[in-house]
């Protein structure tokens, strides 16, 4: 299944080369092995380094702006409706140019492709919005959603994926808000429900090996879901949004409706993320869990401050340092599949790798389990990566 504009094999090869380069840097394989891998997994894709990509991106934005300026000058004074149509047409033309002049010439996220893609999305959306005089919100939302999802699907772009998620949550919020009455007060629960469901759906999709081309996009979606679930349950977010958007008046001594529930969510969601992250060895959950936990601390400090920010800072600093040091010590020899060692940097060089592997697989913590997984690794080849279920 490949509906993106790219040749799946080339992208796969590009990723393999990137990974192998990392392995070489960290002493896992030798330079001549890397060269052999590079020769076998050939890719003609033009995917320059980050600095050049930024340069190309800036240049593309300026150049396309110039182009749009010229087009608009040609058609100045033709009336708003015509301008709207021209916007949409030039958006479509930009997509066409990007695919034929760049992607067909093997550009892959080269900076030029991103630049044109963002411009094209913007043009189409502005064009449609102009048709409705910027008043028909639902039309703008649906267009955004369609444009972003199709563009994400075809061009694998991460920013467009993020834009898609932002549009989606804007839409959900807007329509439950507009529905009024009871719907306004259940907005947080609507968010939690929808994005929890999406998260579990994503987990299922992630196991599907064919979708490897979009694995980074799925990662962005996953992080967005987790963050949105947390934000919808966070006391500070709910309270401040209630006050500013729904004209909720909170007298001293009063609290928002369901306050206890949101207090509970504020604590429970980060803890649940961390717990699940540790259980499933899921770094995404772990990272989001850490960040949301920090925000939860901030939430409580925001409403229950004893007026000494410097003491709070010092205390939270001490706690962070202590936790980090203790965990570093605890995970010095890897435990339960976690390690505080840097597996992919120079740390490998000073590390006795053999001993490390041996402690892992033989004399280590869970020999039987590891053996079972090792065998599963063989079966996985045909099975398309059903990994955690073993």
């Amino acid at each position, binding site marked *: 299944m490949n509906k993106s504009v790219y040749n799946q094999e080339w992208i796969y090869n590009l*990723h393999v080369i*990137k*990974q192998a380069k990392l392995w070489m840097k960290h002493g*896992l*394989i030798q330079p001549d*092995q890397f060269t052999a*891998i590079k020769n*076998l997994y050939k890719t003609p894709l*033009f995917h*320059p*380094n980050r*600095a*050049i990509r930024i*340069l*190309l991106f*800036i*240049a593309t934005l300026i*150049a396309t702006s*110039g*182009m749009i*300026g*010229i087009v608009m000058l040609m058609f100045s004074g033709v009336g708003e409706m015509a301008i709207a149509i021209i916007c949409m047409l030039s958006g479509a033309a930009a997509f066409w140019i990007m695919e034929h002049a760049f992607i067909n010439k093997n550009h892959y996220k080269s900076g*030029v492709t991103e630049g044109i893609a963002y411009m094209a999305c913007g043009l189409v959306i502005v064009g449609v919005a102009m048709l409705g005089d910027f008043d028909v919100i639902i039309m703008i939302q649906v267009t955004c959603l369609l444009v972003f999802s199709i563009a994400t699907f075809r061009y694998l772009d991460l920013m467009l994926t993020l834009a898609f998620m932002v549009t989606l949550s804007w839409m959900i919020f807007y329509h439950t808000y507009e529905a009024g009455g009871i719907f306004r007060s259940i907005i947080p629960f609507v968010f939690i429900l929808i994005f929890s469901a999406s998260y579990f759906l994503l987990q299922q999709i992630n196991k599907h*090996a064919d979708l*490897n081309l979009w694995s980074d996009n799925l990662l962005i979606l996953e992080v967005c879901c987790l963050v949105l679930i947390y934000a919808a349950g966070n006391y500070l977010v709910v309270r401040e949004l209630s006050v500013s958007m729904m004209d909720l008046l909170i007298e001293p001594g009063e609290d928002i409706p369901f306050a206890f529930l949101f207090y509970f969510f504020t604590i429970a969601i980060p803890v649940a993320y961390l717990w699940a992250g540790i259980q499933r060895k899921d*770094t995404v959950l772990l990272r989001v869990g*850490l960040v949301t936990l920090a925000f939860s601390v901030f939430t409580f400090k925001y409403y229950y401050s004893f007026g000494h*920010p*410097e*003491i709070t*800072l*010092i205390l*939270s*600093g*001490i*706690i*962070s*340092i*202590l*936790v*980090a*040091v203790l*965990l*570093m010590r605890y995970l010095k020899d890897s435990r339960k*599949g*976690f*390690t*505080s*060692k*840097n*597996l*992919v*940097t*120079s740390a490998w060089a000073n590390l006795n*790798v053999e001993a490390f*592997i041996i402690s*892992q697989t033989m004399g280590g913590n869970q020999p039987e389990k590891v053996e079972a*997984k090792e065998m599963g*690794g063989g079966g996985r080849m045909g099975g398309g990566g059903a*990994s955690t279920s073993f």
Partner: protein
Amino acid sequence: MTRSTPRQMAEKKLITEDEFKKIELITSGKIVSVFYELRILLYMGVMLFASGAGILIYQNIGELGHLASILLLAVIMLGCFGYAIKHGHDYKNDQVESPNAYFDYVLLLGCLLFVSIQGYMQVQYDAFTQSMLWNTLITAIFYFYIAYRYDHIGVLSLAITALATFWGLKISSKKWYNGDFFDQADLHITAMVFATLLAGIVFSLDKKSIKKHFTFTYKNFCFLLFFIGALTGIFIDSIYDLLFVSLIYVGCIFAWQQAQQKKSFLFLVYAFTAAYIATTYLLGKYLFNSEPVLWYYYFLISCGGIIYGIIQYKRLFKR
């Protein structure tokens, strides 16, 4: 990259069975490294603690409990440096690995506390402008010593910032006495001179192979300061704009050289941005004044040309 790739590589004899076992452990997620997570947590802890200490010092100056807390902070600071002296490796001109995972953070905490305490002493005991100037210099020298002695790039950035501050203060201190501290009309020239001098020193240090891995940090500062200074100059001293524009072009030549020799293209992005703004300014001032339509064509053609050039000569931009 799929989960089965390492196994396929092993089957194709690209990697040996041993290597496969190591790689497989990582790619399959059997071992998860939380190296960066813990580092970030530690770093945040140090930052939070140091900024809390900084605020603590400036509040309630003169109270008794306050003095005690400053003494405590000073003890912690001395403890940090004591730890560094005890555990630090010997000085070498090459890169020196830190002795353990905590070393860099202990050193950073010590340095951050140093500047807080020093700032307190200054506010508390003499508020003269001249001493502030020299205090900044002392901080810079101390930081440079620490950075070189214990091989710490983070402290090096602090040192460069402190030195740049010293220069900025020194040049503008005359105006400070006269009461118009905010009239720093020549600060951009200071920045450019400072950047050029520093770049010269770093170039010779690099030649002598003294801490070669510091060079990038220095150059990053130098290029940024130089280009920002020159761009500011174009707009502030517009009588001499041609001079500043040609200086930017000279900077671009250096950036191009760096990109070709060291394969570090970040400076090329700075150079491109600065040169493009400068050129556009010149054209706007001397050529396009009468014909605004030309702008659109200019943007399209110039940037289109840049894109075309990079794609045509892509081997020049490869690492």
